[in-house]
């Protein structure tokens, strides 16, 4: 049985504008897919496609108005507290760490909130701080950390309770090359070692190339492609032969090509 199963999930937002009639935006429309345990999925699509909305629905933050979603046997928004105890979420543009205190204090708080036993917590924390190389940052207030440093601390925070699924919404946004590569290595290793299912959204196609076993393309609230990256590349890489594509054509061009062809 798949770990994540979505069937015809729809979510729309009503936006009120001054002096104009309320407008309904369809962020997701009848989205269906399944994900097996341990998969590493890349979720791509242009701005406003519905990626973050999808992540929020799957993490129990938003309640969709139609469709069903079952993750590890639970409906995220109905059994929210039980669901979120088993997942980790990282929002690249938002912080989950407490801004005014060092990461260490936030980690202590998370230990209590997730009821992690002390020995397990200590072991996990030293493992993660080692792998993410944040040992020297643990006692600096989060406010004073650089974006890349903060992101590394956020990832550790999201993995402390050893979640079964990790959602990452644009985790590499604004990171320099070194941090980006380190983060990828870490995610790959963590996926292999602990078998954590990972679903990440990104605009950086090299993230997807380096990490993901499967890619889902979302556009205007619909899943437009769901399969491996190679096939996607071949399909949308204008008439050139495959060898040439791999050498010369930039993956971003291929994706831009696809977005244009799909008119999204």
């Amino acid at each position: 049985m798949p770990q994540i199963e979505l069937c015809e999930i729809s979510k729309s937002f009503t936006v009120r504008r001054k002096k104009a009639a309320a407008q309904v935006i369809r962020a997701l429309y009848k989205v269906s897919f399944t994900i097996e345990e341990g998969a590493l999925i890349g979720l791509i699509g242009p701005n406003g496609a519905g990626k973050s909305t999808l992540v929020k629905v799957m993490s129990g933050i938003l309640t969709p108005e139609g469709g069903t979603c079952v993750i590890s046997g639970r409906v995220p928004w109905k059994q929210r507290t039980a669901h979120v105890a088993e997942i980790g979420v990282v929002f690249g543009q938002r912080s989950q760490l407490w801004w005014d205190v060092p990461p260490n204090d936030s980690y202590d708080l998370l230990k209590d909130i997730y009821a992690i036993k002390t020995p397990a917590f200590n072991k996990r924390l030293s493992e993660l701080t080692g792998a993410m190389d944040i040992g020297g940052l643990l006692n600096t207030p989060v406010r004073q950390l650089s974006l890349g440093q903060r992101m590394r601390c956020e990832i550790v925070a999201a993995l402390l309770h050893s979640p079964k699924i990790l959602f990452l919404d644009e985790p590499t946004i604004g990171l320099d090359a070194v941090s980006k590569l380190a983060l990828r290595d870490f995610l790959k290793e963590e996926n292999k070692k602990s078998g954590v299912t990972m679903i990440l959204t990104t605009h950086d196609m090299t993230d997807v190339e380096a990490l993901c076993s499967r890619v889902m393309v979302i556009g205007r609230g619909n899943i437009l492609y769901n399969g491996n990256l190679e096939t996607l590349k071949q399909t949308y890489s204008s008439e050139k032969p495959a060898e040439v594509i791999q050498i010369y054509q930039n993956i971003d061009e291929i994706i831009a090509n696809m977005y244009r062809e799909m008119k999204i």
Partner: protein
Amino acid sequence: MTRSLKAFAAMFKIEFFKGIQYRTAAAVNSVVGLFWGIIEIAVFSAFYLYANDKTAAFFASLTLRQVVTHVWLRQAVIAFHPQNIEEDIRGKINNGDVGVELVRPVPLYLLWFSKTAASRLVLFLFRGTIILFSMFLSGIYKISAPVSVTGFLLFLVSLVSAFFLCAAFGMFVTSLRLAVDWGDGLTYIPLIAANVLSGSYLPLQLWPDFMQKFLLYQPFAGYLDIPLRFYIGSVKAGEALPSLIAQVLWTVFFIAAGNIITAKNVKNIIVQGG
């Protein structure tokens, strides 16, 4: 229960470290409280000294010594009173980070209640020093000892109850802020009204006689005035138990209302962007 205690303890730890980090601000806050208390006492003693036939009745319900003690205790207890929606929570509501809080396996109300309460308790630790200082003042400015051992114990019980009442009302206003897009400005109105009705500006027993029944049983007497009455011994016969019960009932009411309103609005919470 254990989960709520844990959440509270964890929040308290965070707030405490934050308090220590900003200890200069907290210390300044306490020094200001001390000076403010001295000025108030000077004003009150002038009023008592120059009370004439007409105004004497006004002051008859409390002695100057009782008023002085009321001033000092209040300077510390006022730390419990929510002056605004808790800073971090307000930030999260305004910039859409509320969604991030929902990925924690703790009910949102509980998490925020703990945070609201913990931040107040930390401030109380700092402002509690004002009471210590006031013991070393001389003459009319010195705080008095509690009226009796029983009075002191009842004061402590009622003080704990006041702490929960204040956090419950703070969270009630927070839940309203989630429900209605008022902007921050209007949330001050219930908070200021609560401060006035708590006796923070003038002890409730110095307000006009015809208002006394209402003042004692309205929700905010429990913020301050009820516990302090036990300490200074101004509780009227037959009002001790009813006033304690009223304090608890209002707390239960605000917790229930805040919980319901928060739960209702969590469902339609808007999380923009990211």
